[in-house]
């Protein structure tokens, strides 16, 4: 699904934010991405959703190197990726409904299907009463739920969620993590960046741990081991 080889990223003339990142995500996998604030989680996600090109190294997505892809091909890859941005990035002049409907409309689904799917999903995330509301009139948690709904509406092959429950209370946070789990079981590859030890502990997925520009993949067994060691 995704393979990073010796990938490095720097912004402008600054230091390398990510260096020598090497990992492979199998289709249908579910990983947490963790690391202290400023470690580069969002930057790594940015590379994965093709929001930036790496300054060095090779990224292979959906079996093809992104350097060899045409502009149209990149667009069609992006259509298969759902992203929950850390800062939501909703279109402020579009209603919650239209925001969530956007991915379906971009890929040209019939309006009837759009209506049904979007209505259902908004109900499900608890925003049935806020379909016509504009994002600036929504609370932080409501906006975050719109952002999550928008990311999953088109059943993406790859879902990247950056701190998706930071503004949500535990109850609805767990509910949405369960939604991700469900999508994962239906074949979506998922990466969730999070600070919450609580959530990572509750859902025992393998972790990509970022620190000082480098990435360490901690498989499930590995960190359970660490946790047990910590407890005793």
């Amino acid at each position, binding site marked *: 699904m995704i393979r990073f080889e010796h990938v490095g990223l720097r912004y402008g003339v600054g230091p390398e934010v990510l260096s020598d990142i090497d990992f492979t995500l199998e289709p249908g996998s579910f990983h947490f991405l963790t690391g202290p604030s400023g470690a580069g989680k969002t930057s790594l996600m940015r590379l994965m959703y093709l929001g930036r090109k790496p300054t060095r190294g090779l990224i292979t997505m959906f079996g093809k190197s992104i350097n060899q892809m045409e502009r149209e091909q990149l667009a069609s890859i992006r*259509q298969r990726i759902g992203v929950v941005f850390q800062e939501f990035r909703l279109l402020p002049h*579009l209603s919650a409904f239209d925001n969530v409907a956007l991915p379906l*409309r971009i890929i040209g689904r019939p309006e009837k299907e759009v209506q049904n799917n979007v209505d259902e999903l908004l109900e499900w995330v608890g925003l049935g009463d806020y379909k016509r509301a504009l994002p600036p009139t929504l609370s932080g948690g409501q906006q975050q739920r719109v952002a999550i709904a928008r990311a999953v509406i088109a059943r993406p092959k790859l879902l990247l969620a950056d701190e998706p429950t930071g503004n949500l209370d535990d109850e609805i946070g767990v509910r949405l993590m369960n939604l991700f789990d469900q999508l994962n079981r239906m074949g979506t590859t998922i990466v969730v960046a999070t600070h919450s030890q609580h959530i990572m502990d509750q859902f025992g997925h393998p972790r990509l741990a970022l620190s000082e520009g480098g990435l360490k993949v901690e498989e499930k067994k590995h960190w359970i081991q660490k946790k047990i060691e910590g407890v005793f």
Partner: protein
Amino acid sequence: MLGLFKKKDRRLGSSSKRQYDIPLNKNDGADFLVLLIALMTFLAVLAMSGSFALSSMTKRWSSGLENKLTIEIPAEKSDGSLRSSEQIKGFTDKVLKSLEGNPGIKSAVMLEKDDIQELISPWLGDDMVLDDIPLPGLVSVELHVSTPEVLTGLAKDMALINDNIRIDTHETWLLSLLRVTGALQYSASFITLIIALTTIIAVAGGVRARMAIHREDVELLHLMGASDGYITKQFQRHALILAIKGALAGTIAGIIILLIINGVSGDAEGGMLPDMNLNAVHIVALIALPGFACLIAALASRFTVLRVLSAMP
């Protein structure tokens, strides 16, 4: 004035259920762009019709009044003594010959005694007998166009024959007037050009400024896999609607002002509009103007968006 078009736009907008992902139809600065385009079109209409009016004024003046002049071989020499009529006839022939070879001259006719008599009859009455009066030699000349160059050339030719020969252009001061209106006309065209250029810059700038506000939205759509065409289309369509509003308002305002000016200058024979209205080329140009403004707006928005998009991976 702009309010007029609001309702129509809303109707346009509802032809399909959802027009824009980017909130372009929200009014943050759109009215401003409309006003700008209206203003530019308005000024361009005025400058253009000013140019046209000057052009036809100049043409009429130089054709009606200016193309005729008289060359005079005075009856007395510069020292005061009289010339014989044979001498005068000789000079007149030379002048005629010189004029024949000049391509700027349409016709040159020597005035006979009868003509001269007619010329001075208001003062002297018809019954005067001119036989025993020493008459000057007069040649009435018609030019194709009277430009300063033709006239200077003519003066040189005459000086070669005799430096006592005078050229009477009837209205010498009109020549300098023509030079002024020529400069004015030149300026009007020049101003039209400047307005067109600044329209391009201003509209492109306006579109770019609106683009800057929506840069993040554009990037978001791009990240969601929207094609460049999908995004560009929205901006272009939006810019076009704004431009049409603005250009129409500006043209209409311009035409109203022209009609008012025409009304003020009224039934003056030298009025501006009567000539302008008749010329098909001018009418076409005036209609083309708003179209041109719209084209500029659409293209400016298209290329601005494409340039922003091309910077995204």
